[in-house]
Protein backbone atom coordinates (compact mmCIF):
# COMPACT_ATOMS: atom_id res chain seq x y z
CA UNK A 1 0.00 0.00 0.00
CA UNK A 2 1.31 3.47 -0.85
CA UNK A 3 0.48 6.45 1.34
CA UNK A 4 -2.76 7.34 -0.45
CA UNK A 5 -3.95 3.74 -0.50
CA UNK A 6 -3.17 3.47 3.19
CA UNK A 7 -5.19 6.63 3.92
CA UNK A 8 -8.16 5.29 1.96
CA UNK A 9 -7.82 1.93 3.72
CA UNK A 10 -7.76 3.52 7.17
CA UNK A 11 -10.69 5.80 6.35
CA UNK A 12 -12.73 2.81 5.28
CA UNK A 13 -11.60 0.90 8.36
CA UNK A 14 -12.56 3.69 10.77
CA UNK A 15 -15.96 4.04 9.09
CA UNK A 16 -16.92 0.83 10.92
CA UNK A 17 -16.70 2.63 14.29
CA UNK A 18 -20.09 3.14 15.87
CA UNK A 19 -21.92 0.65 13.68
CA UNK A 20 -24.07 -1.96 15.39
CA UNK A 21 -22.87 -5.33 14.13
CA UNK A 22 -26.46 -6.17 13.26
CA UNK A 23 -29.95 -6.04 14.69
CA UNK A 24 -30.35 -6.72 18.42
CA UNK A 25 -30.45 -10.45 19.13
CA UNK A 26 -32.90 -12.06 21.54
CA UNK A 27 -31.89 -15.39 23.05
CA UNK A 28 -33.76 -18.44 21.81
CA UNK A 29 -34.76 -19.50 25.30
CA UNK A 30 -35.60 -17.56 28.42
CA UNK A 31 -33.34 -18.05 31.45
CA UNK A 32 -34.12 -21.61 32.46
CA UNK A 33 -33.08 -24.29 34.92
CA UNK A 34 -32.02 -27.00 32.44
CA UNK A 35 -29.45 -24.72 30.79
CA UNK A 36 -28.27 -23.52 34.19
CA UNK A 37 -27.84 -27.11 35.38
CA UNK A 38 -25.94 -28.05 32.24
CA UNK A 39 -23.64 -25.05 32.76
CA UNK A 40 -23.12 -25.90 36.44
CA UNK A 41 -22.27 -29.53 35.57
CA UNK A 42 -19.60 -28.46 33.10
CA UNK A 43 -18.12 -25.78 35.36
CA UNK A 44 -18.16 -27.92 38.50
CA UNK A 45 -20.42 -25.24 39.94
CA UNK A 46 -22.26 -26.40 43.07
CA UNK A 47 -23.43 -23.03 44.41
CA UNK A 48 -27.02 -23.64 45.63
CA UNK A 49 -27.88 -20.09 44.52
CA UNK A 50 -28.01 -21.51 40.99
CA UNK A 51 -29.34 -24.99 41.71
CA UNK A 52 -31.50 -25.30 44.79
CA UNK A 53 -34.60 -23.11 45.21
CA UNK A 54 -35.05 -23.99 48.89
CA UNK A 55 -31.47 -23.16 49.81
CA UNK A 56 -31.34 -20.07 47.58
CA UNK A 57 -34.33 -18.66 49.46
CA UNK A 58 -32.34 -18.06 52.61
CA UNK A 59 -29.59 -16.16 50.80
CA UNK A 60 -29.15 -12.70 49.27
CA UNK A 61 -30.29 -14.22 46.00
CA UNK A 62 -33.74 -15.16 47.37
CA UNK A 63 -34.48 -17.55 44.52
CA UNK A 64 -32.59 -19.49 41.84
CA UNK A 65 -30.51 -17.11 39.77
CA UNK A 66 -28.35 -17.81 36.74
CA UNK A 67 -24.55 -17.87 37.21
CA UNK A 68 -23.29 -14.36 36.36
CA UNK A 69 -20.69 -15.42 33.79
CA UNK A 70 -23.48 -17.18 31.85
CA UNK A 71 -24.83 -13.79 30.71
CA UNK A 72 -23.60 -14.05 27.13
CA UNK A 73 -24.64 -17.70 26.86
CA UNK A 74 -28.32 -16.63 26.87
CA UNK A 75 -27.91 -14.93 23.51
CA UNK A 76 -25.42 -17.27 21.84
CA UNK A 77 -26.55 -18.59 18.49
CA UNK A 78 -25.70 -22.21 19.27
CA UNK A 79 -25.71 -24.72 16.45
CA UNK A 80 -25.67 -22.10 13.68
CA UNK A 81 -22.18 -21.05 14.82
CA UNK A 82 -20.59 -24.27 13.56
CA UNK A 83 -20.92 -23.03 9.98
CA UNK A 84 -18.16 -20.54 10.65
CA UNK A 85 -17.65 -17.01 9.53
CA UNK A 86 -16.41 -17.33 5.96
CA UNK A 87 -19.38 -15.42 4.58
CA UNK A 88 -19.75 -12.02 6.16
CA UNK A 89 -23.05 -12.21 8.02
CA UNK A 90 -22.90 -8.94 9.89
CA UNK A 91 -20.80 -5.78 10.27
CA UNK A 92 -18.35 -7.45 12.66
CA UNK A 93 -17.69 -10.24 10.17
CA UNK A 94 -17.41 -7.67 7.37
CA UNK A 95 -14.86 -5.72 9.38
CA UNK A 96 -12.80 -8.83 10.06
CA UNK A 97 -12.99 -9.90 6.42
CA UNK A 98 -11.97 -6.41 5.30
CA UNK A 99 -8.87 -6.60 7.50
CA UNK A 100 -8.06 -10.19 6.51
CA UNK A 101 -8.31 -9.22 2.83
CA UNK A 102 -5.65 -6.58 3.50
CA UNK A 103 -3.25 -9.06 5.05
CA UNK A 104 -4.34 -8.76 8.69
CA UNK A 105 -5.10 -12.46 8.85
CA UNK A 106 -4.16 -13.10 12.47
CA UNK A 107 -6.76 -12.72 15.17
CA UNK A 108 -6.28 -12.82 18.90
CA UNK A 109 -8.72 -12.05 21.71
CA UNK A 110 -6.91 -9.88 24.25
CA UNK A 111 -9.36 -8.52 26.86
CA UNK A 112 -12.93 -8.68 28.04
CA UNK A 113 -14.84 -6.73 30.63
CA UNK A 114 -18.24 -7.76 31.83
CA UNK A 115 -20.47 -5.80 34.18
CA UNK A 116 -23.37 -7.60 35.78
CA UNK A 117 -26.12 -5.19 36.85
CA UNK A 118 -27.75 -8.06 38.71
CA UNK A 119 -28.08 -11.85 38.52
CA UNK A 120 -30.72 -13.10 36.07
CA UNK A 121 -34.01 -14.61 37.21
CA UNK A 122 -35.70 -17.67 35.74
CA UNK A 123 -38.01 -16.78 32.85
CA UNK A 124 -36.27 -13.56 31.81
CA UNK A 125 -35.70 -13.10 28.08
CA UNK A 126 -32.33 -11.64 27.26
CA UNK A 127 -31.67 -9.34 24.33
CA UNK A 128 -28.27 -8.03 23.33
CA UNK A 129 -27.00 -5.43 20.94
CA UNK A 130 -23.36 -5.15 19.97
CA UNK A 131 -21.67 -2.07 18.55
CA UNK A 132 -18.19 -1.72 17.08
CA UNK A 133 -17.03 0.79 19.67
CA UNK A 134 -13.36 1.43 18.95
CA UNK A 135 -10.74 0.69 16.35
CA UNK A 136 -7.23 1.68 17.37
CA UNK A 137 -4.58 3.25 15.18
CA UNK A 138 -2.14 0.78 13.72
CA UNK A 139 -0.02 -0.66 16.53
CA UNK A 140 3.19 -2.62 16.60
CA UNK A 141 2.60 -5.66 18.83
CA UNK A 142 4.51 -8.79 19.73
CA UNK A 143 2.41 -10.61 17.14
CA UNK A 144 2.94 -8.17 14.34
CA UNK A 145 1.42 -4.84 13.31
CA UNK A 146 -2.32 -4.63 13.65
CA UNK A 147 -5.45 -2.97 14.93
CA UNK A 148 -7.27 -3.45 18.21
CA UNK A 149 -11.02 -3.71 17.74
CA UNK A 150 -13.32 -3.21 20.72
CA UNK A 151 -16.97 -4.22 20.59
CA UNK A 152 -19.47 -3.28 23.30
CA UNK A 153 -22.57 -5.30 24.04
CA UNK A 154 -25.53 -4.24 26.13
CA UNK A 155 -27.93 -6.75 27.62
CA UNK A 156 -31.52 -6.08 28.68
CA UNK A 157 -34.68 -8.03 29.45
CA UNK A 158 -38.17 -8.02 27.93
CA UNK A 159 -39.12 -5.03 30.10
CA UNK A 160 -36.18 -3.05 28.78
CA UNK A 161 -34.42 -3.38 32.13
CA UNK A 162 -30.62 -3.30 31.88
CA UNK A 163 -28.94 -6.58 32.86
CA UNK A 164 -25.31 -5.89 32.14
CA UNK A 165 -22.72 -5.02 29.55
CA UNK A 166 -19.65 -6.51 27.97
CA UNK A 167 -16.70 -5.21 26.03
CA UNK A 168 -14.44 -7.45 24.03
CA UNK A 169 -11.12 -6.47 22.49
CA UNK A 170 -9.40 -8.38 19.74
CA UNK A 171 -6.17 -7.76 17.89
CA UNK A 172 -6.30 -8.23 14.14
CA UNK A 173 -2.69 -8.47 12.96
CA UNK A 174 -0.41 -9.19 10.03
CA UNK A 175 1.64 -12.25 10.94
CA UNK A 176 5.21 -11.43 9.90
CA UNK A 177 6.48 -13.91 7.29
CA UNK A 178 9.67 -14.30 9.31
CA UNK A 179 7.82 -15.18 12.47
CA UNK A 180 5.73 -17.73 10.58
CA UNK A 181 8.86 -19.40 9.24
CA UNK A 182 10.46 -19.43 12.69
CA UNK A 183 7.33 -20.93 14.24
CA UNK A 184 7.37 -23.60 11.53
CA UNK A 185 10.87 -24.52 12.61
CA UNK A 186 9.84 -25.31 16.15
CA UNK A 187 6.72 -27.23 15.23
CA UNK A 188 6.26 -30.97 15.35
CA UNK A 189 3.73 -33.18 13.66
CA UNK A 190 0.82 -34.84 15.35
CA UNK A 191 -0.50 -38.33 14.67
CA UNK A 192 -2.41 -37.14 11.62
CA UNK A 193 0.64 -35.40 10.15
CA UNK A 194 -0.62 -31.91 10.90
CA UNK A 195 1.83 -29.33 12.15
CA UNK A 196 1.51 -28.73 15.88
CA UNK A 197 3.25 -26.15 17.99
CA UNK A 198 5.71 -27.56 20.48
CA UNK A 199 4.68 -27.22 24.12
CA UNK A 200 7.12 -24.96 25.97
CA UNK A 201 9.45 -26.81 28.28
CA UNK A 202 12.24 -25.95 30.68
CA UNK A 203 15.04 -23.95 29.07
CA UNK A 204 17.86 -26.45 28.64
CA UNK A 205 21.28 -25.68 30.13
CA UNK A 206 24.13 -25.21 27.68
CA UNK A 207 26.00 -28.51 27.51
CA UNK A 208 29.57 -28.22 26.31
CA UNK A 209 32.82 -30.13 26.55
CA UNK A 210 33.30 -29.11 30.17
CA UNK A 211 29.90 -30.04 31.57
CA UNK A 212 28.10 -32.24 28.99
CA UNK A 213 29.32 -35.41 30.73
CA UNK A 214 27.72 -34.22 33.97
CA UNK A 215 24.21 -33.91 32.48
CA UNK A 216 24.68 -37.22 30.67
CA UNK A 217 25.43 -38.97 33.97
CA UNK A 218 22.36 -37.39 35.58
CA UNK A 219 20.18 -38.66 32.72
CA UNK A 220 21.67 -42.15 32.38
CA UNK A 221 22.56 -43.04 35.96
CA UNK A 222 19.99 -41.01 37.93
CA UNK A 223 22.70 -39.64 40.19
CA UNK A 224 24.03 -36.27 41.20
CA UNK A 225 27.67 -36.44 40.05
CA UNK A 226 30.41 -34.46 41.75
CA UNK A 227 33.57 -33.94 39.72
CA UNK A 228 36.76 -35.24 41.35
CA UNK A 229 40.37 -34.52 40.47
CA UNK A 230 41.95 -37.78 39.27
CA UNK A 231 45.35 -36.70 40.64
CA UNK A 232 44.79 -35.16 44.07
CA UNK A 233 41.18 -36.27 44.70
CA UNK A 234 39.77 -32.81 45.39
CA UNK A 235 36.04 -32.42 44.63
CA UNK A 236 34.72 -29.51 42.59
CA UNK A 237 31.33 -28.24 41.46
CA UNK A 238 30.13 -26.91 39.05
CA UNK A 239 32.18 -28.89 36.51
CA UNK A 240 35.24 -27.13 35.07
CA UNK A 241 38.36 -28.22 33.21
CA UNK A 242 41.09 -27.78 35.82
CA UNK A 243 41.67 -28.62 39.48
CA UNK A 244 42.26 -25.44 41.49
CA UNK A 245 44.44 -27.33 43.97
CA UNK A 246 46.95 -29.14 41.74
CA UNK A 247 46.23 -27.86 38.22
CA UNK A 248 45.46 -31.30 36.85
CA UNK A 249 43.01 -31.60 33.99
CA UNK A 250 42.31 -35.26 34.66
CA UNK A 251 39.09 -36.02 36.46
CA UNK A 252 36.49 -38.60 37.31
CA UNK A 253 33.40 -38.22 39.48
CA UNK A 254 31.58 -39.63 42.47
CA UNK A 255 27.84 -39.89 43.04
CA UNK A 256 26.75 -37.54 45.81
CA UNK A 257 25.00 -39.12 48.79
CA UNK A 258 22.11 -36.75 48.08
CA UNK A 259 22.07 -35.37 51.59
CA UNK A 260 22.57 -31.68 52.18
CA UNK A 261 21.39 -28.53 53.89
CA UNK A 262 19.87 -25.33 52.57
CA UNK A 263 22.65 -22.73 52.54
CA UNK A 264 20.32 -19.99 51.30
CA UNK A 265 17.25 -19.61 49.14
CA UNK A 266 15.02 -17.25 47.21
CA UNK A 267 11.45 -17.67 45.98
CA UNK A 268 10.80 -16.74 42.35
CA UNK A 269 7.29 -15.51 41.55
CA UNK A 270 8.00 -13.38 38.50
CA UNK A 271 8.78 -13.29 35.67
CA UNK A 272 6.92 -16.48 34.80
CA UNK A 273 8.26 -18.44 31.84
CA UNK A 274 6.19 -21.17 30.22
CA UNK A 275 7.39 -24.65 31.13
CA UNK A 276 7.98 -23.97 34.82
CA UNK A 277 5.81 -24.34 37.93
CA UNK A 278 5.61 -21.16 39.98
CA UNK A 279 6.51 -20.12 42.55
CA UNK A 280 9.97 -21.69 42.30
CA UNK A 281 11.95 -22.20 45.50
CA UNK A 282 15.48 -21.69 44.29
CA UNK A 283 18.13 -22.94 46.72
CA UNK A 284 21.85 -23.13 47.24
CA UNK A 285 22.59 -26.49 48.86
CA UNK A 286 25.57 -27.38 50.99
CA UNK A 287 26.15 -30.98 49.99
CA UNK A 288 27.32 -33.44 52.62
CA UNK A 289 30.49 -33.86 50.53
CA UNK A 290 31.35 -30.20 51.08
CA UNK A 291 30.49 -28.82 47.67
CA UNK A 292 27.82 -26.20 47.12
CA UNK A 293 25.31 -26.19 44.26
CA UNK A 294 22.31 -24.29 42.93
CA UNK A 295 19.09 -26.29 42.64
CA UNK A 296 15.35 -26.20 43.14
CA UNK A 297 13.48 -27.25 46.24
CA UNK A 298 10.24 -29.13 45.55
CA UNK A 299 7.53 -30.72 47.71
CA UNK A 300 7.92 -27.77 50.06
CA UNK A 301 5.77 -24.68 50.49
CA UNK A 302 7.72 -21.46 49.98
CA UNK A 303 6.86 -20.32 53.51
CA UNK A 304 8.28 -23.55 54.99
CA UNK A 305 11.80 -23.31 53.61
CA UNK A 306 14.50 -22.34 56.12
CA UNK A 307 18.23 -21.82 56.03
CA UNK A 308 19.93 -24.91 57.43
CA UNK A 309 17.02 -27.26 56.77
CA UNK A 310 18.09 -30.78 55.76
CA UNK A 311 17.21 -31.72 52.20
CA UNK A 312 17.53 -34.83 50.05
CA UNK A 313 18.14 -35.38 46.37
CA UNK A 314 15.61 -36.46 43.81
CA UNK A 315 16.15 -36.71 40.08
CA UNK A 316 13.26 -34.80 38.54
CA UNK A 317 12.07 -35.71 35.06
CA UNK A 318 10.15 -33.26 32.84
CA UNK A 319 7.35 -34.33 30.50
CA UNK A 320 9.82 -34.22 27.60
CA UNK A 321 12.17 -36.62 29.39
CA UNK A 322 14.77 -34.08 30.52
CA UNK A 323 16.26 -34.97 33.91
CA UNK A 324 17.59 -32.52 36.47
CA UNK A 325 18.69 -32.94 40.12
CA UNK A 326 16.26 -31.30 42.56
CA UNK A 327 15.93 -31.46 46.31
CA UNK A 328 13.06 -31.95 48.74
CA UNK A 329 12.86 -31.69 52.52
CA UNK A 330 14.70 -34.68 54.06
CA UNK A 331 12.40 -37.30 55.50
CA UNK A 332 13.21 -37.66 59.18
CA UNK A 333 12.86 -41.12 60.54
Amino acid sequence: MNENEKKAFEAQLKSFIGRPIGPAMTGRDPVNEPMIRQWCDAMGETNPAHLDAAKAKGTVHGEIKAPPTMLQAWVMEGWAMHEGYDEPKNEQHRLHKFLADHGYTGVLGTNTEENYTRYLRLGEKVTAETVIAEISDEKATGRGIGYFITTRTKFWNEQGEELGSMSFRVLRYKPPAEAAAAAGGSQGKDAKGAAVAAKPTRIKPPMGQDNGWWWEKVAKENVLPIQRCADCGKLRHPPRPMCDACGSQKFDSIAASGRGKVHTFTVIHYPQFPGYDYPIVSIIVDLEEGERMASTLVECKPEAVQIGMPVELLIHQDEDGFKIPFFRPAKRG
Partner: protein
Amino acid sequence: MTKTFKASELTVGQELPPLDLKTTATLVAGGAMASRDYTPVHHDRDAAVAQGLPDMFMNILTTQGLCSRYVTDWAGIDAIVTRVRTKLGGPNMPGDVLKLRGKVVARADRSVDVEVSGNNAWGNHVTATFTLTLPA
Protein backbone atom coordinates in the same frame (compact mmCIF):
# COMPACT_ATOMS: atom_id res chain seq x y z
CA MET B 1 -20.38 -23.99 50.85
CA THR B 2 -18.72 -22.10 53.63
CA LYS B 3 -20.22 -19.00 55.15
CA THR B 4 -19.70 -15.84 53.15
CA PHE B 5 -16.83 -13.55 54.02
CA LYS B 6 -17.46 -9.95 54.98
CA ALA B 7 -15.17 -7.49 53.25
CA SER B 8 -13.85 -6.46 56.69
CA GLU B 9 -12.66 -10.03 57.29
CA LEU B 10 -10.39 -9.96 54.25
CA THR B 11 -7.02 -8.36 53.69
CA VAL B 12 -5.32 -7.26 50.51
CA GLY B 13 -2.76 -9.88 49.56
CA GLN B 14 -4.75 -12.73 51.09
CA GLU B 15 -4.59 -15.84 48.90
CA LEU B 16 -7.31 -18.27 47.86
CA PRO B 17 -6.66 -22.00 48.19
CA PRO B 18 -5.12 -23.20 44.90
CA LEU B 19 -7.16 -25.31 42.49
CA ASP B 20 -5.62 -27.48 39.76
CA LEU B 21 -8.10 -28.44 37.05
CA LYS B 22 -7.34 -31.25 34.65
CA THR B 23 -8.54 -30.21 31.22
CA THR B 24 -10.17 -32.96 29.17
CA ALA B 25 -11.79 -32.91 25.73
CA THR B 26 -15.07 -33.49 27.61
CA LEU B 27 -14.57 -30.38 29.73
CA VAL B 28 -13.67 -28.24 26.71
CA ALA B 29 -16.57 -29.50 24.58
CA GLY B 30 -18.98 -29.65 27.53
CA GLY B 31 -18.19 -26.06 28.49
CA ALA B 32 -18.65 -24.91 24.89
CA MET B 33 -22.03 -26.67 24.60
CA ALA B 34 -23.17 -25.36 27.98
CA SER B 35 -22.42 -21.83 26.79
CA ARG B 36 -24.10 -22.54 23.43
CA ASP B 37 -20.86 -21.84 21.65
CA TYR B 38 -20.70 -24.22 18.69
CA THR B 39 -17.63 -22.60 17.12
CA PRO B 40 -15.89 -25.74 15.76
CA VAL B 41 -12.47 -25.07 17.36
CA HIS B 42 -14.05 -25.59 20.81
CA HIS B 43 -15.39 -29.10 20.20
CA ASP B 44 -13.84 -30.46 17.00
CA ARG B 45 -10.15 -31.34 17.12
CA ASP B 46 -9.89 -31.70 13.34
CA ALA B 47 -11.26 -28.18 12.86
CA ALA B 48 -8.69 -26.80 15.31
CA VAL B 49 -5.82 -28.72 13.67
CA ALA B 50 -6.94 -27.43 10.26
CA GLN B 51 -6.39 -23.92 11.67
CA GLY B 52 -2.85 -24.78 12.70
CA LEU B 53 -3.62 -25.38 16.38
CA PRO B 54 -2.48 -28.49 18.22
CA ASP B 55 -5.94 -29.34 19.55
CA MET B 56 -9.40 -28.00 20.30
CA PHE B 57 -9.25 -25.32 22.97
CA MET B 58 -11.41 -23.92 25.76
CA ASN B 59 -13.73 -21.01 24.94
CA ILE B 60 -13.66 -17.80 26.96
CA LEU B 61 -17.04 -18.40 28.59
CA THR B 62 -15.90 -21.73 30.03
CA THR B 63 -12.70 -20.17 31.35
CA GLN B 64 -14.76 -17.43 32.98
CA GLY B 65 -17.27 -19.93 34.36
CA LEU B 66 -14.48 -21.98 35.95
CA CYS B 67 -12.78 -18.90 37.41
CA SER B 68 -16.10 -17.59 38.70
CA ARG B 69 -16.94 -20.76 40.60
CA TYR B 70 -13.37 -20.88 41.93
CA VAL B 71 -13.89 -17.40 43.41
CA THR B 72 -17.44 -17.85 44.71
CA ASP B 73 -16.72 -21.32 46.16
CA TRP B 74 -14.19 -19.49 48.32
CA ALA B 75 -16.15 -16.28 48.96
CA GLY B 76 -19.43 -17.99 49.91
CA ILE B 77 -23.04 -18.20 48.79
CA ASP B 78 -23.95 -14.57 49.55
CA ALA B 79 -21.14 -13.14 47.41
CA ILE B 80 -22.35 -11.38 44.27
CA VAL B 81 -20.11 -11.01 41.23
CA THR B 82 -20.62 -7.55 39.74
CA ARG B 83 -17.73 -7.30 37.30
CA VAL B 84 -15.08 -9.42 35.60
CA ARG B 85 -12.14 -7.99 33.72
CA THR B 86 -10.22 -10.59 31.76
CA LYS B 87 -6.78 -10.59 30.13
CA LEU B 88 -6.57 -13.45 27.69
CA GLY B 89 -3.39 -15.45 27.23
CA GLY B 90 -2.48 -18.73 25.53
CA PRO B 91 -4.82 -21.64 24.86
CA ASN B 92 -6.03 -24.26 27.34
CA MET B 93 -6.37 -27.67 25.72
CA PRO B 94 -7.10 -31.30 26.57
CA GLY B 95 -4.23 -32.68 28.63
CA ASP B 96 -3.37 -29.31 30.15
CA VAL B 97 -3.62 -28.78 33.88
CA LEU B 98 -5.14 -25.36 34.48
CA LYS B 99 -3.71 -24.02 37.72
CA LEU B 100 -6.03 -21.48 39.28
CA ARG B 101 -4.57 -19.18 41.90
CA GLY B 102 -6.26 -16.17 43.43
CA LYS B 103 -5.62 -13.30 45.76
CA VAL B 104 -7.42 -10.28 47.12
CA VAL B 105 -6.03 -7.21 45.37
CA ALA B 106 -8.39 -4.44 46.54
CA ARG B 107 -10.96 -3.88 49.26
CA ALA B 108 -13.68 -1.33 49.90
CA ASP B 109 -16.61 -1.12 52.36
CA ARG B 110 -18.62 -3.99 51.00
CA SER B 111 -16.62 -5.18 48.05
CA VAL B 112 -13.33 -6.81 47.13
CA ASP B 113 -11.40 -7.38 43.93
CA VAL B 114 -10.00 -10.87 43.56
CA GLU B 115 -7.38 -11.49 40.90
CA VAL B 116 -7.34 -15.01 39.50
CA SER B 117 -4.53 -16.34 37.37
CA GLY B 118 -4.93 -19.50 35.33
CA ASN B 119 -1.66 -20.97 34.10
CA ASN B 120 -0.86 -24.16 32.25
CA ALA B 121 2.28 -25.62 30.69
CA TRP B 122 1.95 -23.15 27.81
CA GLY B 123 2.13 -20.19 30.17
CA ASN B 124 -0.61 -17.82 31.24
CA HIS B 125 -4.06 -18.76 29.93
CA VAL B 126 -6.05 -16.11 31.75
CA THR B 127 -5.85 -13.38 34.35
CA ALA B 128 -9.29 -12.36 35.55
CA THR B 129 -10.16 -9.76 38.15
CA PHE B 130 -13.51 -10.34 39.85
CA THR B 131 -15.30 -7.62 41.75
CA LEU B 132 -17.52 -9.07 44.47
CA THR B 133 -20.16 -7.46 46.63
CA LEU B 134 -20.08 -9.05 50.10
CA PRO B 135 -22.47 -8.91 53.07
CA ALA B 136 -22.11 -5.93 55.41
